[in-house]
């Protein structure tokens, strides 16, 4: 990976991946996740992509992309611990496959730069429409019950912390925005945030750098620094929340504190521990809660890295709540006690390595991986990670598991359930 620093705020990363037939660009604008900013950050990228210097309106954007053999343009926001990331992504087939020798990659980069540095759609009409769409996205979070259960569990668990905020902001926060506020937000953000730009595939990194420099030279940048991540800590009783909705399947989500930040020596063992516990078809949750007890179709666990959290999800009959809840804790205890077969351990290590390796074939996954490393400050490469995973022992896993404590139990139950 080659890194070019455009200025103190903007860095450009080149990840050559010429074996793929596409090239892609990802722009990640790093912000803190906080109530004052979240809603504006969530609406901003959608307004920006509605019109800019090169393509003054949405129709022009669409025609431009279609002429590049259907290049794609995406935008949105991500939440990584207490960080909020505004992103734009574009992808085109590489020049090698352009039937008439067109410069598809350069043209796609040009579109991205224009979008980033000369957005023009900050008028009332556009902003009001995108505000409505942003509220739709917030309310639509209820549509996927599995994700919704985890979202609610997380909200309850991290009450009073910025991490409880949705990446999409709040309805009230969005309602309070207007064109003038958003335009001002844009002007602040573009000059005072760390911005990471990834170019993947078969692209001329120096040509892209030159274009970014040309745009950036017209702006005055301010120093940008982000607060260091802080993991979630709490003392006291387990929180238990049951909510009722018109559903036929119950959704159980259990939130745990891991006590392990991502730059801690126990972080890698924790990922192995999660894999053993609930990270796939080789895991204890899959084989016991699903296969042995036939309680569910899915039961899995996942880690929220920068916040020191782990969540377990399962879709169950309402009446099986106790059975599933107890079995999940029994399985966690088994991991804590080191009751881990050689097969479970090896499968878990292999699954993690397999997943890391697969990023080498996927430009988007690779960008997200590198961006995550950058944000957490660990800056591990895929090879570093693989090496660390291979060195993990069962003792390490036990140590990481021992710190894991149940914090919040959320259950989405049917209308009539108690």
């Amino acid at each position, binding site marked *: 990976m080659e890194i070019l620093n455009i200025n103190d705020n903007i860095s450009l990363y080149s990840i050559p991946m010429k074996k793929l*037939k596409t090239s892609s660009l990802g722009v990640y604008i790093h912000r803190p996740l906080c109530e004052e900013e979240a809603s504006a950050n969530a609406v901003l990228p959608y307004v920006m992509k509605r019109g800019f210097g090169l393509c003054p309106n949405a129709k022009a954007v669409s025609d431009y992309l279609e002429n590049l*053999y259907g290049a794609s343009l995406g935008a949105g926001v991500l939440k990584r611990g207490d960080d909020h990331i505004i992103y734009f992504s574009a992808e085109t087939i590489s020049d090698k496959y352009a039937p008439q020798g067109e410069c598809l990659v350069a043209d796609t980069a040009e579109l991205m730069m224009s979008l980033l540095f000369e957005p023009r759609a900050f008028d009332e009409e556009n902003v009001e429409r995108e505000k409505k769409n942003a509220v739709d996205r917030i*309310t*639509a979070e209820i549509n996927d019950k599995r994700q919704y259960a985890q979202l609610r569990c997380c909200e309850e668990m991290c009450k009073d912390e910025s991490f409880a905020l949705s990446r999409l902001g709040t309805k009230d926060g969005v309602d309070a925005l207007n064109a003038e506020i958003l335009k001002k937000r844009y002007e602040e953000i573009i000059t005072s945030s760390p911005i990471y730009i990834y170019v993947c595939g078969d692209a001329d990194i120096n040509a892209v750098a030159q274009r970014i420099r040309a745009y950036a030279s017209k702006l005055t940048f301010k120093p940008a620094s982000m607060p260091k991540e802080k993991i979630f800590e709490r003392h006291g009783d387990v929180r238990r929340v049951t909510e009722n909705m018109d559903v036929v399947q119950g959704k159980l989500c259990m939130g745990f504190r891991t006590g392990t930040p991502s730059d801690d020596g126990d972080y890698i063992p924790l990922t192995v521990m999660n894999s053993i516990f609930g990270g796939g078809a*080789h895991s204890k949750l899959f084989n016991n809660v699903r296969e042995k007890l036939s309680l569910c179709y899915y039961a899995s666990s996942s880690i929220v890295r920068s916040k020191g959290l782990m969540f377990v999800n399962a879709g169950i009959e309402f009446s099986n709540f106790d059975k599933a809840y107890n079995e999940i804790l029994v399985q966690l205890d088994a991991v804590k006690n080191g009751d881990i077969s050689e097969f479970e351990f090896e499968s878990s290590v*292999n699954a993690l390595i*397999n997943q890391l390796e697969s990023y080498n074939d996927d430009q988007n996954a690779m960008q997200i991986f590198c961006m995550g490393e950058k944000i957490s400050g660990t800056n591990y490469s895929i090879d570093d990670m693989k090496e660390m995973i291979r060195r993990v022992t069962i003792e390490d896993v036990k140590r990481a598991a021992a710190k894991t404590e149940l914090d919040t139990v959320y259950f989405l139950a049917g209308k009539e359930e108690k």
Partner: protein
Amino acid sequence: MDMRHIKNELTGEEMYFGKHSSGLGVYVIPKKDYSNTFAIFGTRYGSVDSEFIVPGEKDVTSVPDGIAHYLEHKMFDQPDGSNVFDKFSKYGGNANAFTSFNITAYLFSATANVEENLAALIDYVQSPYFTEDSVKKEQGIIGQEIRMYDDSGSWKLFFNLLNCLYKNHPVKKEIAGTVESISRITPELLYKCYNTFYNLSNMSLVVVGNVDVDKIVKVTEDGIKKNEPFSEEIKKIYPDEPDETAKQFAEQSLSVASPLFMIGFKDTDTGFGGENLLKKSIEINILLRILFGKGSKLYTELYEKGLINNTFSFDYTMQPSYAYSVLEGESGDPKDVYAAVNKEIERVKKEGLSEDDFNRIKKVMWGEYIRSMNDVEDYAVTFIQYLFMDIDYFNYYDVYKQVTFDDVKKRFEKHFVTERSALSIINPV
């Protein structure tokens, strides 16, 4: 097994393929420098195939709905009591399976030990083992899978639409069946279906990735068990489906935030696979983009009025025996969207399509084809889906280049018929 080699100069792709004496079709697509390899072992058998005549028999066999999917789940149990996932896990392979309307497929992806993983795949798909107990055990798991879909607005939206478009065709039935239908599944029925549809002459193996072709062929040959290929086709029986829709409207209430809508157009120009089917699908995909793409007149109008948002999308699904296109999204007023769609179709009928639009969108189709070869999984799955429709995906260009503006104009008249459309809505409770 003789393997033929072909190279596509436009895409730079290469492929080796051949037919084993057991009847199994084998396709290997090497991807140099890739980390990942993906293999898929599939059969031409899906949820729509509940009535059929076994080669050599006279009578029609009828089986409970959802059995193809149930069979897929039960293939993971092995005669020695082991679980298939364990074999893959040991070699770091990520194994899975799926059942769609027309295909059941078993697959894995792996970045190491490809040959060991492939041997495991070929072995377990040829090792059925069903007992009363093991069949019963699955009812709890699949019961929860069905329940999960019962709460899914987008899933119900889709099946309610298919029940509008189709009067008789089994595509309108849920893939997993119902809690009632799966309760009638027995080991004997599973064996009957297995012995019919999992005959290797009804199956294909596709491997895409950084592989040594000779080794893949050897592992495959070594892994194939004794199989007598069918000399005649399995006769799949589908009821007659009239051109008209069953109804034009369906709605249901579920816990969703705002109304979800899906509009469908029933394609009645069916009954064929191969090049003609590929050509038709390119024509319809071009039309969908011209009429409803982000740069279209209708999209702009609906988006600016706030009648649709970024969730709006469209798709065309085709099989030899049925086909339909759909438009879906969220809207405060789905009926207004439906009316606007039909009005736009009337307008285009009068004013005609634009040749500039056609030329621009045809380029998009080429980009999509190139892009589809990027990811080993997407590529292999797409390849086998087309293969089972007798379409040569590798040589897509040969058909693509034939598609003219005139073809697309004719297709528009045939496909976008208001009387053969329907609207499905999921309302918030």
